[in-house]
């Protein structure tokens, strides 16, 4: 893994005439797992898409190793930064191996189609995600958890040092959410990949993030190691939720226990 510097400077992003992210500065820590959290519509997915060069900045820039990504060729960015969007589309009847192979696109030329390196990358990606045994199965025949691992395999086959994932656990049950986050941690630890994940589940975010970014209304409220930044005030500010923060009995990371209007037996800590 080569080390890379992905950062945004004074970044403003938006759709039509609405700014979603405004004048934001952020640096993605190299070789770590960064998790972005925030309420719905806080701009976290937009920021992720901006970092992956999917959106043209209204102001500022996303810099990859010091160069504005807008000035780089999209295939060159795609050799360093991979993106797994929230709802990718599996073409009709496609098999696992074929789909994973599509991740090789940025490494192939207009005429040069398939090389031994492509084979090796696809095989490594399927091995790492435990999808090699599914290679010949059509995507439509897989469970949600298997399918998500196949998409991660496609992102891995792209062989980028940075992998960005937009809510990869959304349609998964709790078992498969944990399994997927474990897999991403494996990839980070064993292969040194820098990983950025947008997540909904605050407790899983606290457990798996080396670096947590909390966003609200298109701006970063606080960022840092979860144990350093998570407290009841932050949760109240970012999510508008009253909560107690206790140590996660399994990982020791902060665990957010919401206080709703009902079933509240103890006074606030």
């Amino acid at each position, binding site marked *: 893994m080569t080390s890379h510097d992905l950062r945004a400077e004074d970044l403003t992003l938006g759709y039509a005439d609405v700014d979603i992210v405004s004048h934001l500065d952020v640096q993605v820590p190299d070789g770590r797992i960064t998790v972005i959290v925030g309420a719905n519509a806080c701009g976290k997915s937009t920021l992720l898409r901006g970092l992956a060069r999917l959106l043209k900045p209204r102001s500022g820039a996303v810099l990859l190793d010091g160069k504005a990504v807008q000035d780089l060729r999209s295939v060159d960015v795609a050799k360093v930064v991979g993106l797994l969007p929230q709802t990718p589309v599996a*073409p*009709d009847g496609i098999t696992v191996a074929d789909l994973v*192979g599509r991740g090789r*696109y940025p490494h192939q030329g207009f005429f040069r189609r398939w090389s031994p390196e492509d084979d090796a990358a696809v095989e490594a990606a399927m091995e790492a995600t435990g999808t*090699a045994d599914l*290679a010949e199965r059509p995507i439509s025949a897989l469970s949600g958890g298997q399918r998500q691992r196949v998409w991660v395999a496609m992102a891995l086959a792209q062989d980028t040092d940075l992998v960005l994932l937009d809510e990869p656990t959304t349609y998964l049950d709790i078992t498969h959410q944990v399994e997927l986050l474990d*897999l991403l941690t494996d990839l980070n630890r064993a*292969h040194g990949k820098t990983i950025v994940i947008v997540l909904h589940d605050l407790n899983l975010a606290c457990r798996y993030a080396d670096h947590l970014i909390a966003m609200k209304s298109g701006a970063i409220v606080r960022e840092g190691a979860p144990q350093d930044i998570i407290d009841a005030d932050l949760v109240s500010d970012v999510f508008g939720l009253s909560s107690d923060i206790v140590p996660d009995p399994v990982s020791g990371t902060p665990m957010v226990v919401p206080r709703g209007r009902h079933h509240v037996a103890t006074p606030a800590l």
Partner: protein
Amino acid sequence: MTDLLDRPADQPAAPEPTVRVRRGRRFRQARVVVVTTILGAVAFALFVATMMIGSFPVSAWEVIASTFRLQDDPSIDFIVRDLRLPTAVTALAVGLALGMSGLIFQKLLGNPLASPDFVGISSGASMFAAVAIITFHASGLVVSGVALLGAVLSAGAIYLFAWRDGVTGYRFVLIGIGVSEFFVAITGYVIARAQVSDARAAMSWLVGSVGQAGATELRILLVSLAVLLPLSLLMGRQLGVIELGDDAAQGLGLRVQAARLGLLTVSVLLVALATAAAGPVAFVALIAGPIAVRLLRGQGSGLLAAAFVGAIIVLLADLVAAHALPAALPTGVVTGGIGAPYLIWLLATVNREGRGG
């Protein structure tokens, strides 16, 4: 499934699945080649067969020898080269063009219903042709040229209407259907106001028949196909990425808007040229792609296979239309007869899978 993750990712991979992955890819590629070759052979066989049958039967060898000028026999040559070859070549070329462009549309717009029949390309050609025939009493090459113009203009109009920070497949399909209805309405109005003889001429063009192509239209179609078919095949790789959705495609480094415009242009030209030569032969573009994809089990781009399936459908339809029925019918009537039940089946099943858009 969970046990696969218990193993640390840095542990060396067991060789067996690795070998299996590579072998699997080779096997799938071989399968694509075999299926595509068979489809090509069937299309060629039908191409020859359409020239064998008629009031004066000709043997397969005589057809091949005469078509490829392997030997000269004036009476056979007259029947094959002068009488039957133009129709057979038109059927072959129109089928190839429609089959390939239909699959490009469907993949590009992410919808099995998004064939040029429905999104206003064919109806644009039809409206222009009907107006030319009825209002200006045009015929032959002029009608073809006007139809070509109509198809290209309507595609351009749909693209512009659908533009909003780029064009998405979904909006293109919806606006295309709207534009299509608009053209159908105008066509109906023009025909309703026409003299009976003009209306009849227009209607027979509108049904679509491979027998109506003139020599010039055919030559233009063939030359264009020689350029557009290889170009489409080269763009199949971009298509394979674009069909993963815009975000995934951009994440893989594809310039999505440029690629979509390029693919749309090529496929619109294919449909426009085919329609200009033979009229809007219904449903071929809709059904060829899904059949090819199913036969290939979703492997590869399927574009060449779809082109062959398109050719097979049109050649078969031409055989049935010209010989199997008591009275000779236009090709479009037969393809419509095959396509309508498929469309009903598609509408019934697609929405059950929640993919109808």
